[in-house]
């Protein structure tokens, strides 16, 4: 597989850091090396937050922020189109967004014909399940559906390990719903 690097963009409280960690956990469970880390020192509710996941089948040495991701995941629909989100995204990489818009429309907004786009209305799904816009597991579902980077069941295992019991079922429900309802343009 080689190296696969993901950058997560959200706002404090949406769970971007947890999403990065869960994805790394799922990757380790799949048999890869993986590391996850937040953009350091930005832990304030509502503030823009970045988090990173590095996956490789070789040991990962570097401990630097990801500058040229293979995928960016946008947890906050208001961030779709922001330059900071698009920054460094590889040609042929994935732009995965929480939005009600369809992927063709997002591709026009970001103005990059050379990237693949996947969208899911994660906020709507999360509101139905949690009555709160906690979209992190939904966005992992979208990432996994679009890229196939790790099997869905490994993410479910990571969710079971990570969350207290009462949060496990709703998160897995949300994860699966997002996985099923993702729309993409490649």
């Amino acid at each position: 597989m080689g190296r696969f690097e993901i950058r997560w963009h959200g706002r404090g409280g949406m769970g971007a850091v947890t999403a990065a960690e869960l994805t790394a956990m799922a990757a380790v469970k799949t048999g890869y090396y993986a590391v996850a880390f937040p953009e350091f020192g930005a832990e304030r509710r509502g503030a823009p937050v970045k988090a990173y996941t590095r996956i490789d089948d070789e040991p990962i040495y570097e401990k630097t922020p990801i500058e040229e991701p293979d995928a960016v995941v946008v947890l906050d629909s208001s961030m779709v189109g922001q330059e900071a989100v698009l920054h460094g995204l590889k040609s042929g990489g994935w732009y995965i967004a929480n939005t009600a818009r369809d992927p063709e429309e997002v591709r026009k907004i970001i103005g990059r014909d050379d990237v693949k786009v996947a969208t899911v209305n994660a906020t709507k799904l999360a509101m139905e399940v949690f009555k709160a816009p906690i979209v992190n597991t939904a966005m992992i579902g979208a990432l996994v559906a679009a890229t196939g980077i790790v099997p869905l069941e490994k993410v479910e295992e990571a969710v079971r390990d990570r969350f207290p019991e009462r949060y496990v079922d709703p998160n897995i429900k949300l994860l699966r719903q997002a996985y099923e309802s993702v729309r993409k343009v490649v």
Partner: protein
Amino acid sequence: MAGKKKLPLSGNTAIAYAVKAADVDVISAYPITPQTTIVEKLTEFVANGELDAEVIHVESEHSALSAAVGASAAGARVFTASSSQGIALMYEIMFIASSMRLPIVMAMATRALSAPINIWNDHSDFMAASDTGWVMMMAHTNQEAHDDIILAYKIAEHPDVLLPVITAIDGYFMSHTIEPVEPIEREEALKFIPKKVTWSVLDPDNPVTMGPLGTPEWYYEFKRQQHEAMKKAREVFDEATKEFEKVFGRRYEPVEYFMMDDAEYALVAMGSVAGNVKAYIVKEARKRGIKLGLIRVKLFRPFPAEEIMEVISNLKAVGVIDRALAFGSSYGGPLYGDILSAAYTRGVDTPIVNFVAGLGGRPVTFRDIKAMVDATLALDGKTRKDVPKEPYFIGVRE
């Protein structure tokens, strides 16, 4: 590759798991970023009944270490953790812990020192502790951070050593980064570090005074003994790591060499930046035919001068990366100072140049490492007289 029982743990959580496995009796700490989640996790273990320890909530780091000194003097296995200003506030008691020969283990999630206030990573706090009489090591993976705690108790409590030990990780770059870690279980940990009081303790039946006045007639001898204990710590480190490898299958050396077998040039580094250098060597330098290797200093006190010099003496040029500044010193960065004096006393002539980088959490990028490699290569064929007298300040805006 997935080994058995690997868990995705942050550096801080990996440390907390090891402290639990070491079955410590007393945890005394005060919260400070980026260390806080170590003690947070430990208090969770205590609250869940997974660890039977006394947690002492104190009002400052000065008190945290003072309580640790008291508990250790009573015969408890003690743990504390801190960072940055917390280390600075502990400074007074750090000397007392080491000269009272108390085997306290402290984890440090390294962070810059104020001012200006900066919660991000560099080695200013670690280097400020370098002359406090503590054994000091620094990890560069979360697995190593975990294992270092177990090694630390082995070294600290050895009757020939009886010194406190600092095990450091880089704040955020390791403390908050998730990596796969194979945790050591309590049962196997306690076989390696059985709980036995090997040091002088307070005993109501046989009253003694600890830490009393040391007059000029006695004080100097205490210091000389600390010096000898530090030398012993090196022997015990070597024994402990050998035994550790037999039991747990992972080998640690005072110095890690990466692609040094055929190297002509090397960078010397500590902590997370060593990982960035490794990645640069594999992905850039070697592909361009530059015979570059990495010398990663794991054990900082006692300083492994002999083995580093043995390797450096065969190289064309060497660059030393410092993540702290010794203001006004004759050398620049503190690690460079140790390397230079080791080179002088061992008669090593290799040109060795200093790089200061990544202060206050500024990332050390491939571009930065390339600049260091270029400056090191430029010393090929030169003598040590040609080495710049000032460090290169890498990645700073002038």
